[in-house]
């Protein structure tokens, strides 16, 4: 009897969590859309204005829940970052995730080779600073690589 009640409680909690997550995290489509917005601004307002807007957390256009924009040059230097301003100006070409993937290097390669694509890696979530699995969509943007990622699960 008690066990049955406990199981029922757990099921209810789980259902609530799932419902909440649907609203809390951005989706892949939303990520792609944000990249496109960045591309549009880059084409219209130029690199510096775009980078400033992307890095400024008050710009709602580029900041939506756990979604943000990051821009690297082709040498791996971070030029704009929506979540982690400390990284701006740092060369992360050799940065590895916990699985040993050279993630910046790999995303630059995708941008260079096919112009756009998805890439899976691990990255700290800006909401809770926990390192989580992330899938990012990247595109080539002039001499830069621009990307937005979603945290899986």
């Amino acid at each position: 009897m008690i066990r049955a009640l406990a199981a029922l409680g757990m099921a209810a909690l789980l259902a609530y969590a799932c419902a909440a997550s649907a609203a809390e995290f951005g989706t892949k489509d939303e990520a792609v859309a944000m990249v496109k917005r960045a591309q549009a601004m880059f084409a219209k307002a130029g690199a510096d204005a775009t980078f400033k807007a992307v890095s400024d957390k008050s710009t709602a256009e580029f900041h939506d829940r756990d979604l943000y924009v990051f821009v690297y040059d082709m040498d791996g230097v971070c030029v704009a970052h929506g979540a982690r301003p400390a990284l701006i100006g740092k060369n992360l070409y050799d940065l590895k995730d916990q699985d040993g993937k050279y993630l910046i290097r790999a995303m630059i390669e995708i941008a260079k080779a096919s112009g756009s694509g998805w890439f899976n890696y691990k990255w700290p979530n800006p909401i809770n600073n926990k390192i989580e699995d992330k899938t990012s969509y990247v595109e080539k943007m002039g001499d830069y690589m621009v990307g937005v990622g979603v945290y899986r699960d």
Partner: protein
Amino acid sequence: MLTRVTIRATTLTVSTAAFLCLFGMAVAVYLTSSQVARNLDTLLRSNLPARAAAVAVNNTVVNAHMRIFRYVSWASNGVNATLLGNLRQEIDTAFASVDRNFKALAARPDLSDAVQADLRALQGKLNKYEATAKDVLDVGATDPAMATMMLGQADDSFTAVGSDVRRVLDTITQQSNAMMADLAEATRTETFSISAGLAICIAFSIAGTAFLIRSIVRPITSITQVMQKLSTGDTEVALNSPGRNEIGRMIEAIEIFRRNALEIQAMQASRRQADEQRAATRRGEMNELAEEFEGSVKHIAAELVEAVTVVRSNADVMAQAAEHTRTKSGTTVQAVVNTQQNVEIVAQAASELSHTIDELARRAHDVFKITNETAAQSESASAELAKLTTSVEQILPITDLIQGIAQQTNLLALNATIEAARAGAAGKGFAVVAAEVKSLAQQSGNATEEIAHRISTVRSTCAAAVSTIGQIIAAIKNLSTFATDISTGIGQQSAATAGIFASAQSAADNSRAVAANIVDLNSHADATYAASGEVLDAAKLLFEHTRGVQTNVEKFLRHVRSA
């Protein structure tokens, strides 16, 4: 050929060869040793310090790296900004010392090209590592999560630096190893050359020794043998092929010795023959002499033995007598000593007695003197008493006079009483005075009578005292006579005691003399005993000698006859 070379030349040649060998070996050793020393020097001055400098670079990098990790860890766990700032400073200092150590290593003047190439590569890696590390720290100050992500990157750079440092170390080690190998090779060469030199030296010395033995020792040995044989008189020896060196000349000299020896042998042979003839003649004479000698000596010896036997038995008897005497005289000595002791005790007693008697005489004399003094004092007391009696008697007329005065006074008082009664009332006072005077006169008469009575008592007492003193004096005189008698007796006794003492003294002296004589006698008896023992020993010895003489004479005769 060898026999023509002189010994001096031979020895000179051999020793020169040995010296040259040693000199050559010394030169070889010097050359290889100096190469070894050079290599060791390089190793010590250049390779080892370069290695140490590379290790220092590595250590400082490790030091910095550990602090970077600590920084990120602190930042992730919210350690405050001040502590993080301090740690950042420490890390900067660590990097400064990395740079300093690297510069010190790169500035070493003796680095090989390979090491310099390695160092250039390392410089690039170090720069990259420092840049990466600074990025991590910058990010870590505000974004620890990201810095944690970046640690992998820093680690890769660090690993790259580490492997480059290792490569530098490996290159230096390889160079050191090459030098060590050179050293080992040089040491091996040295060992080989020393061994070879030694082998050649040993071979030379063996050859030289063999040569010396062949050319010097062996001929000398054979010469020595020949000379020994010559010295024992064996002239049947020959030395062949005399050379022209010192040994050849020696052999010639020995040949001369040999010939001389042969001549001496011939002379000796002829002399021996003559000697033998003379000896045969003498033996005959000796035999005759022996016969004669035996005849006389044997008889004498037999007699001598007999006489000695008699002497020996007499000596035995004498020794026994002497022993007896000795024992007896010993006993006598003891008796005499006892006697002497007794006599001395008597003498001592007599002496003590004499002392006692002297003391007695002194006391008797004292008594005599005191008695005489007492007698004299008693007589003077008697005289004094007589004087007292006389004085007392002289008082008597005075008492009579006083008596008369008292009677007259009494009469006068009576008269006055009468006259007063006649006067009546006018004479009443006077009658009282007259009665008073009368009473006084009566008292005076009574007193005078008392005095007369006392004087007569004194007189009779004095008379009794005089008579007593007279008796005392008579007694004392008697006592004086006795004392004189005692004194005389004691004098006689003292004389007798002195006589006894003198006699005892004399007896002691005599007995002492007797004891001395007997001790003397005893020592003579001892001497006699010892002498008789000696005589006996001598007799025994004489007997043995006589026996010996007899045996020897017989032996001598046998010998003479057999000669």
